[in-house]
């Protein structure tokens, strides 16, 4: 006989899960009892939101499904932000929540919340398991749904009596999951691919625009091969950074609101835009009708609903980006010279390199740049959200996929630190940095306790400007510098870290940046770096909200 809790833990192990992130509570007591002498590693976080973000960071760094566990009611509700974050960025996680016993469902019982109802719009799918007999196959389905097609979070809600009830149960032999209502298209339509290739060779000013879909389908090698075979320039979204090396001569860097001028000008002048695993988000397109308005559009995406959602497309190709790119590469036999176009792009790149004031003042861009130099493309960089995120995107040179982890779609402050913990468990041999702001870091600062207790060697580099910097920047530019509730009081983060048992250094001058970064990298355990940076530095260039993306302001310092 096996209880539901035993079936759950065994099932997780059968799915290849080694580490889960969670927080115990009343109705998950039977599950925690099962974990007590299980070989499954459980990391106790200090807030359930961190468990969801850690599972997400694990998934992004490893490409596997991340798992988090929380109790009913408040525990489950605390997962919500993390689940929504994973949903917006198509990250495969399975969130397991306890629920009040089935006999009490709907009675406003203690710590009851309708978590399947609450997470309906932010999960790819969810389950309320009412019979212990269903638990095993629900778990299999959940992992299958989370990790295939357009990936995403799946939640499983387990009432207490379902996890305590003992039943006769043997796991069925691993046969593929079949669901009548879920059959993602993997192979792209051959004729559509032919048409796309035709269009590519008709174009004079083609541009590849690649997004997070390339990372999540592990299609970076194919993408790079396409770029080099065709000799076509590429720009990536925030989520696509690392898909091709930042210093590749055909890479224009990120496009969009804080993208490079060369990328945004190239989109505007291109006559063919090849969108690969990207979704024409408003932070990318700016004013939609002026976005790539001279271009025909090829759109390759696993999710048919993304095609034509924001922008009319000439050649839609539904399929997994890796598979579609492989099929394309086989069919491409020739190469065309785009000399005029490439030299025009080179001109922009040379004229508008990323730049900030190099005047001896400790500026946040300098910190990121130095870290990038030191790591030389190694390590995993996680960010919080806001200015810290954009400076990292602009000044860190990403060379490999899955080395850049950030909350793009939802823009969740507080994401970075716990996600960095998750990334460490995915890649224990890699140095993991969370590049943070003082605002974001304080949203999940309690996880200092988790990294201290478990000696999780995450390094936090706080770009401390005592502002909610990105909001302050908008207030400076668009609200007459009326800094309404964006100034934060000074915090001595080294003391805070020390209180939790974590080492740290405060850095106040340019000369101390590199030694401090080296000290952090050289430490075996977690480390906090408190960089007291220029307070009113802005992220430039910038496309004001609602403007066309070639109407950029700022960012030219010679």
């Amino acid at each position, binding site marked *: 006989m096996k209880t539901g809790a035993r079936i759950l833990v065994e099932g997780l192990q059968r799915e290849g899960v080694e580490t889960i992130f969670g927080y115990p509570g009343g109705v998950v007591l039977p599950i925690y009892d099962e974990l007590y002498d299980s070989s499954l590693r459980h990391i106790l976080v200090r807030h359930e939101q961190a468990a969801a973000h850690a599972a997400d960071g694990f998934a992004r760094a490893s490409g596997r499904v991340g798992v988090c566990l929380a109790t009913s009611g408040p525990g489950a509700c605390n997962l919500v932000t993390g689940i929504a974050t994973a949903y917006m960025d198509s990250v495969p996680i399975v969130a397991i929540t306890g629920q009040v016993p089935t006999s009490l469902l709907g009675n406003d019982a203690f710590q009851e919340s309708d978590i*399947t*109802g609450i997470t309906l719009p932010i999960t790819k799918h969810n389950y*309320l398991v009412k019979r212990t007999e269903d638990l095993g196959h629900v778990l299999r389905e959940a992992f299958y749904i989370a990790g295939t097609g357009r990936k995403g979070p799946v939640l499983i809600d387990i009432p207490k009596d379902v996890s305590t009830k003992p039943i006769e149960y043997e796991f069925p032999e691993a046969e593929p999951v079949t669901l*009548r*209502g879920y059959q993602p298209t993997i192979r792209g339509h051959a004729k559509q691919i032919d048409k796309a290739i035709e269009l590519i060779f008709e174009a004079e000013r083609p541009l590849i625009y690649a997004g997070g879909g390339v990372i999540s389908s592990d299609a970076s090698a194919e993408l790079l091969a396409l770029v080099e075979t065709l000799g076509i320039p590429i720009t990536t979204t925030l989520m696509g950074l690392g898909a091709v090396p930042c210093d590749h001569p055909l890479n224009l860097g990120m496009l969009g609101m804080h993208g490079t001028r060369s990328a945004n000008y190239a989109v505007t002048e291109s006559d063919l835009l090849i969108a690969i695993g990207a979704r024409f988000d408003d932070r990318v397109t700016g004013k939609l009708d002026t976005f790539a308005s001279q271009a025909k559009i090829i759109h390759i995406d696993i999710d048919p*609903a993304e095609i*034509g*959602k924001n922008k009319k497309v000439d050649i839609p190709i539904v399929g997994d980006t890796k598979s579609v790119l492989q099929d394309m590469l086989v069919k491409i036999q020739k190469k065309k010279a785009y000399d005029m176009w490439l030299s025009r792009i080179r001109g922009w790149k040379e004229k508008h390199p990323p730049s900030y004031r190099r005047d001896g003042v400790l500026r946040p861009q300098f910190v990121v740049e130095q870290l990038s130099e030191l790591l030389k493309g190694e390590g995993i960089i996680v960010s919080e959200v806001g200015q810290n995120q954009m400076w990292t995107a602009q000044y860190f040179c990403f060379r490999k996929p899955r080395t850049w982890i950030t909350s793009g779609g939802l823009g969740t402050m507080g994401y970075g630190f716990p996600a960095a913990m998750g990334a460490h468990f995915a890649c224990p041999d890699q140095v993991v940095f969370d590049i943070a702001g003082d605002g974001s870091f304080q949203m999940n600062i309690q996880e200092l306790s988790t990294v201290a207790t478990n000696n999780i060697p995450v390094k936090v580099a706080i770009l401390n400007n005592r502002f909610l910097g990105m909001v302050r920047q908008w207030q400076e530019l668009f609200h007459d510098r009326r800094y309404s509730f964006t100034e934060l009081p000074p915090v001595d983060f080294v003391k805070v870290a020390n209180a939790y048992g974590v080492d740290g250094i405060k850095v106040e001058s340019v000369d101390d940046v590199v030694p401090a970064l080296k000290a952090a990298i050289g430490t075996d355990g977690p480390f906090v770096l408190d960089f007291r940076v220029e307070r009113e530095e802005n992220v430039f260039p910038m496309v004001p909200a609602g403007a066309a993306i070639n109407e950029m302001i700022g960012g030219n310092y010679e």
Partner: protein
Amino acid sequence: MKAHTLSVLVENKAGVLSRVSGLFSRRGFNIESLAVGICEEPDMSRITIVCIGDDAQIEQVMKQLNKLIDVVKVSDITENERVERELALIKVSADPGSGRAEVMQLATIFRAQIIDVGAKTVTLSVAGDTEKIEALEKLLRQYGVKELVRTGKIAMLRGAKTVKSAK
């Protein structure tokens, strides 16, 4: 912008209706009517949805519906030859001697059934397409419609064609 009739085949699972209807509200799509019930396939239900939108919006509605794991098949049958029915129950003020006879005459003309007669009211049951029901309701309004219940439209393709699984 025009009304589209969607026939949606779904797994008969708890919460499937809230998944479908929730999708409409959160993505800002307008539902005119929604009718749901079990169908010829075991473990499945068929939902008929009438919604209003331009072609791009309807395409997005269908694609988003298709993404729901419990949705097996979505068909827009607006442009197809089809039969449609809706059922309405209408309670009309009809004092004996002041209009009752006329109400009953209207019922006959519209092939509606009188399913309840009270001291001051009669209740009609009428089935048909939306236009017919609306026409009858309009005519009955002068006598005083005390209560009206409509099922929402159900629809089916004409001839041998069906809306079946194999998504």
